[in-house]
């Protein structure tokens, strides 16, 4: 059964002619069809995928060595894809066909990947449970009554259920890592600027980063290599050459210093999650790594800081959705103001409206200094905390989320409880650092537990290497939920 193989294994099988891209593509399309109850996809492009697979097979026959040639993948519906729907999980873009490809989409297409479709997500990536999507919630394959996490919940559920071998996500405050933790995947949020944001619909421009959701660190390395790289169309993208992540996977853990922030191991974290994380860290110790205590004294300020900056930027980024040029436009508007008001009232969901209001308020005359400016100062202090910690250690380790996957509807009515789910992840975005979540066992309900690694700026290679070494001696990442 091809869906039991990792992306890296499938790549080798394709190259050795053991399977064709068309066969693989058919297989995964059938699985998508079979498990539509997960609601992981917003758009499935069977026709386009089969045509791309056919092209890939011809290229393979001619000896193509393109890194992702013939491999089926899926993109989060936040990436613009030419010719097919790009909805961003919102009604306001529920009819938007992009005339251009995002840089990430372009890169993976260039490297031969076969796009199966676009995955479900929280509306405009605002959410931690995938319940804010206009296209309905996504179900967690490990327990259909639970959320897959968010906002990249569709990608996470799809990979966890092996409806696709790997997928892309985006992470503004934890939107790759938390779903990876909830679904038992390896998910990486790269350093800010590592991957181009061009064509990725903006939520909070200074925090957004695209990254892979995969079955293993090895697969994540393969995807990141394709996604990353300087893009002259994104002024915030870094000019550094992308390292060969596959080559550095086999790293030596001897002497690697893992810093455990006191603040990430407190009573706010679920006991079983904490135990899972501690057990995983013990294995690292056995492999030669050193565990040391570090401090991130200002991490508690992360949530309030994040929930000023992210909505402030979002309130401005989402102003372009006005019904004038594309997307949903309200009918029967008597004047311009009505056009704006009705279009946006109908087009945006509750959570998006809430954040636009918070952000507009934070930027308003008379409040700007107290909120936005203050938040920027805190942001610098948080970044300095990380700088200090990284003088003592190479990687900061802790739980990705305070709990395992929670129930559908459990926090949907309580925004603050929902926001608190990002407590260990969003400081990383504020500091622009790379971080990865990897599976570290299961709790008593059989739900995956996520271990988070945070690295120095542009040090993704070390995170992937450390995770890979752990995955060579454990098999948590190879587990499939029952029935898939």
């Amino acid at each position, binding site marked *: 059964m091809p869906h039991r193989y990792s992306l890296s294994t499938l790549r080798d099988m394709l190259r050795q002619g053991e399977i064709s891209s068309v066969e693989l593509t058919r297989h995964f399309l059938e699985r998508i069809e079979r498990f539509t109850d997960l609601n992981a996809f917003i758009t499935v492009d069977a026709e386009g995928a089969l045509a791309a697979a056919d092209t890939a097979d011809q290229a393979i026959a001619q000896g193509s060595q393109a890194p992702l040639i013939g491999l089926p993948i899926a993109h989060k519906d936040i990436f*613009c894809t030419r010719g097919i729907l790009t909805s961003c999980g919102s009604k306001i873009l529920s009819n938007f066909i992009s005339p251009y490809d995002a840089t990430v989409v372009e890169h993976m297409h260039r490297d031969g990947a076969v796009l199966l479709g676009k995955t479900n997500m929280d509306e405009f990536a605002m959410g931690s449970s995938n319940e804010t999507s206009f296209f309905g919630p996504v179900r967690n394959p490990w327990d259909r009554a639970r959320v897959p996490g968010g906002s990249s919940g569709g990608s996470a559920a799809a990979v966890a259920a092996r409806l696709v071998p790997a997928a892309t996500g985006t992470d503004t405050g934890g939107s790759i890592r938390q779903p990876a933790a909830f679904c038992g995947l390896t998910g990486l949020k790269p350093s800010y600027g590592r991957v181009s944001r061009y064509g*990725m*619909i903006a939520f909070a421009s200074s925090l957004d980063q695209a990254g892979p959701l995969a079955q293993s660190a090895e697969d994540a390395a393969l995807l990141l290599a394709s996604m990353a790289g300087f893009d002259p*169309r994104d002024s915030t993208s870094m000019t550094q050459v992308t390292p060969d992540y596959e080559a550095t996977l086999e790293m030596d853990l001897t002497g690697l210093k893992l810093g455990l922030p006191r603040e990430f191991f407190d009573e706010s974290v679920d006991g079983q999650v904490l135990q899972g994380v501690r057990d995983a860290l013990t294995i690292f110790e056995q492999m030669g790594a050193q565990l040391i205590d570090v401090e991130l004294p200002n991490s508690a300020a992360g949530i309030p800081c994040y929930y000023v900056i992210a909505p402030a930027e979002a309130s*401005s980024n989402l102003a372009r*959705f*006005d019904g*004038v040029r*594309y997307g949903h436009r309200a009918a029967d508007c008597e004047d311009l103001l009505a056009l704006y008001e009705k279009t946006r009232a109908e087009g945006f969901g509750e959570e998006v409206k809430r954040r636009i209001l918070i952000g507009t308020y934070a*930027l308003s005359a008379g409040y700007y200094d107290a909120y936005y400016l203050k938040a920027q100062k805190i942001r610098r202090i948080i970044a300095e905390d990380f700088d200090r910690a990284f003088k003592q250690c190479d990687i900061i380790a802790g739980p990705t989320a305070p709990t395992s996957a929670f129930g559908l509807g459990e926090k949907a009515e309580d925004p603050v409880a929902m926001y608190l789910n990002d407590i260990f992840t969003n400081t990383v975005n504020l500091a622009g650092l790379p971080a990865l979540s990897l599976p570290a066992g299961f709790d008593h309900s059989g739900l995956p537990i996520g271990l988070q690694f945070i690295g120095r700026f542009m040090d993704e290679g070390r995170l992937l290497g450390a995770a890979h070494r752990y995955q060579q001696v454990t098999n948590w990442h190879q587990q499939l939920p029952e029935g898939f």
Partner: protein
Amino acid sequence: MSWEPVIGLEVHAQLQTYSKIFSGAPTAYGAAPNTQACAVDIALPGVLPVMNRQAALLAVKFGLAVDARVNPRSIFARKNYFYPDLPKGYQISQYEIPIVAGGELFIDTAQGRKRIGITRAHLEEDAGKSLHEDFHGMTGVDLNRAGTPLLEIVSEPDMRAPAEAVAYLRKLHSLVRYLEICDGNMEEGSFRCDANISVRPMGQTQLGIRTELKNINSFRFVERALEFEIARQIEVLEDGGTVAQETRLYDPATDETRPMRSKEEAHDYRYFPDPDLPPLVITAADLEQARESLPELPDTRRQRFVTEYELSETDAAQLTAEKDTADYFEQALAANACNHRLMANWVTGELASWLNRTDTPISESKVSPSMLGELVRCIQDQTVSGKTAKAVFEAMWHGDGTAGEIIEARGLKQILDTEIIEQAVVEVIADFPAQVAQVRAGEEKVLSFLVGQVMKATSGKANPRAVNEILRQKLCS
């Protein structure tokens, strides 16, 4: 009571770049609607701005030319408001840290030279255009202009009369054209002006409440709008009222200003630094490059014209007000080494009047600098008289050839041969005995009648000075 107006101007100068400030789309004017707007300009989901360095360098040139500080790191900010011709729902501008701060410009007033402070100049993008007339019951949006680079130049409230405001505006207009950073075309909107105006009792230091005037996009409108507004504000105050702080629109048809929107309903633009754009960094090398590309500036050139060409201040000012005029003058001199003042007279006199009458820019003059140079030489070496030269100029304007060709073809060469002139003088003396007697009796002014007769006899070609001298010789000896 006597009142003092206080005026400050905000000028939007469109920077002359090939592509837009944050995208690669062309900036050319006049294309079919929405054909020069790319994905970035129409603000498709996911697109990002990338700074056009050329626009920044043009702004730096301006900063150096007005002796301002060029900030090594300036910040782009988003100005948030909704309007259909503003595709992103925000305009990218500069707010707290502009690229240029604290400069100055000098104007000539009746009381002499006056310094006008320049508060700042910042980079921003233009919006598109809403077309309300072309579609029945609907509004069309043309985004060709969206993203065109602008330099907003804000003056200090240093002007005290409409005439000073116009002088400042003209000076600025001349400067941006000298610098070749803006084409200055006011009809196409490449150089637009808003004015802030208040009045206060003469002698009071505190500023009065100001209004902002929009739609004053010609030198004439600026002056008229300001005059109207000053009178209106004074009337309000003298009637015991207070001036409302508001934006007012000037209507050239009625020559009035009327309220557009009041400050109470003014937008809260929610400025914040644009997270998509890193700080705009201007290095020492950029400054050096801009400095090297600076042309000779109007004030310097004017001084040089006075010292190098021994022109009057007035002539020098007139010749250097526009770069094209100064260039014309110097090209004409270079082509034909001739008298500077005589050339100055011709450029500011006959040439200027023909350009004016036919509404022709000097760069498209029908008489080229070298053609005028040749003509002025002909006057200087007495080939033609000044009067005849005007006729030759007219013929050149109409395309009849060069000065030499026209003089030759029409036999206009001046008679300098005293024997020929003497003969004509003798004949005139013989023909007009009565007038000759009057001159001899001391009636000096009749002499000009006799000069006229000699000129007539020589078909106007005799050198008038020679005729005068010879006549005097004959009659007064």
